[in-house]
């Protein structure tokens, strides 16, 4: 599945080279070409925005980014529903992957915009950790992962309807939300910072 592990490298002695971010971006750009849509630099780590269909290649590229080490660990897979986002955005969902290079203590974020009903290739062929994480995303957001061996619900009951983490899913559940009258169906904050500020 992965390259053989080199356990002889102690974690603390390697520090990332100063230009590792540029090199990572260049390597991914060389592999993906136009499919690397954007690079965002945040205060915590850089974010590569890619086309969702190319995530497996990105994972491969990031793993062999240096000679000795690379982003070998898939830390986390999650998704964000941008339905209630105040500004315009390309698609409704964003799937977010976090990769870790444990030797050099660096992390990188990969993000892909996904429309409703669109599926994303699975990373289960490369990382065992993708298995349950992708199931959770499917359960909570309803984004399906192509090629996943067992894409069923994980936290909610098997016969549950709807995907609770979506923004149009009412916070108290669909049954109770029916009794709520004259209010916005969906996820509404108790107070809004901006509204209160305008008062």
């Amino acid at each position: 599945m992965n390259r053989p592990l080199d356990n002889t490298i102690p974690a603390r002695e390697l520090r990332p080279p100063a230009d590792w971010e540029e090199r990572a971006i260049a390597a991914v750009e060389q592999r993906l070409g136009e499919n690397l849509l954007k690079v965002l630099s945040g205060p915590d780590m850089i974010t590569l925005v890619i086309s969702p269909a190319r995530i497996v290649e990105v994972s491969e590229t990031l793993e062999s980014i240096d000679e000795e080490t690379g982003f070998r660990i898939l830390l986390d897979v999650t998704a964000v529903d941008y339905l209630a986002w105040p500004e315009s955005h390309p698609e409704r969902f964003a799937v977010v992957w976090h990769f870790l290079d444990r030797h050099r203590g660096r992390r990188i974020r990969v993000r892909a915009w996904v429309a409703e009903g669109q599926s994303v290739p699975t990373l289960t062929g490369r990382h065992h950790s993708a298995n349950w994480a992708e199931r959770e995303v499917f359960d909570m957001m309803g984004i399906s992962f192509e090629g996943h061996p067992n894409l069923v619900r994980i936290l909610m009951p098997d016969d549950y309807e709807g995907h609770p983490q979506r923004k149009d899913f009412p916070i108290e559940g669909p049954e109770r939300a029916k009794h709520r009258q004259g209010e916005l169906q969906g996820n509404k904050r108790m107070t809004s910072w901006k509204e209160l500020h305008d008062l």
Partner: protein
Amino acid sequence: MTRRSEREEHRLDEASRWYWESVPPELDLYEESAQEDRIVVNIGPYHPAMHGVLHNIATLEGEVIVETEPHIGYLHRSFEKLGEVYSWQQFLNCTDRMNYVSAPMNNVGWLLAVEHMLGIEAPKRAQYVRTIIVEMSRIMDHLISMGILGVDMGAFTGFLWYYAEREKAYQIIEKQTGARLTTTFGRIGGLERDVPLDFVEDVRAWVKGFPQVFKDFDDVLSRNRIFIDRTLNVSPIDAETALSYGFTGPNLRAAGVDYDVRKATPYMCYPEFEFEIPTGETGDVYSRYTVRLLEMIESLKIIDQAVENIPEGPWRIEDPAISLPDKKDVYTRMESLINHFKLTMHGVPVPPGEYYHSTEAANGELGFYIVSDGGVGPYRVHVRRPCFYYYSAIDRLLIGGSISDAIACVSSLNVIAGELDC
């Protein structure tokens, strides 16, 4: 020991002979025909050794688990959804209920994520107090997980000794936060209140008394023949597989990988302290046990260094947009009253953006991924729970072992259902 008489031996032989003769010699118990004899056993969800509400549907061949299907979600409260309607400060209460064995570690993880998003840093004194409480919680977490590992195997004594020690730590934390289990420790930008006057004294006394209990527990369990038989080479996992499953924390270190967030990407004031990262070799139950034991000693070292060097000074940021004013000022000064009202009603303005921050919790890398739209609360929170990834490997770990091995394995992974389901 009494020796059976010859006559008795003969009778036993006679009694069992009919059975062995009735088994046809050509029957191979491991052939496919034996699959019909497989038994499906539900381990959990309400089983005392399943630590909350874990559920395994195990298929047995004889006593060997050949297949297992983990089911989770029995404690799912959807804190990630709740976070979307809560404010930044309110979500702190949700983090208490994730890993409830060491709640302050979750609290500090969340606070650091929000503080980094705000671009602020808590004062030195607050950081030292946080470090002390967090490392105490790490010890408390390891105390209970290792104590319970013994309990699940029938060794109750060590657990009680450890629990008495845990109780003392509880009292120190209760003095500081006012709660024992759901601590809601700290506030954005520092602490809720300064430490009590006898905090340093209490911690010193606790640090002084701990090694004796540690030694007692070590004596009673670490070289216990029965314990070693039950744990050594039971459900091992090699480093590469563990990494692929997303293992972090003590369970990864037991497999020989010295990854620790405190060293790899240091946060708070960990670079100022000297401590080691203990690692195991085989990743079996026994090495998970030993790694946790050694980690307690390292945490004790950190507490010792922190409590001796705890600086004086402010314990929260003096910024009215972030910290609540003193209660006595709220009752006497108009500005403070307004400030209190504004902060409580409007919350802390966190700039829009996304942020991932991870800390080394007792179980491994606890990460908070936050998306903010500039509102009173997070637009989206996702918690990277270490337990979630441990438990995803459970089918691989349990297969080939017996049910008693399964109990030891689940115990040693220290899967907390509140964190697993979140």
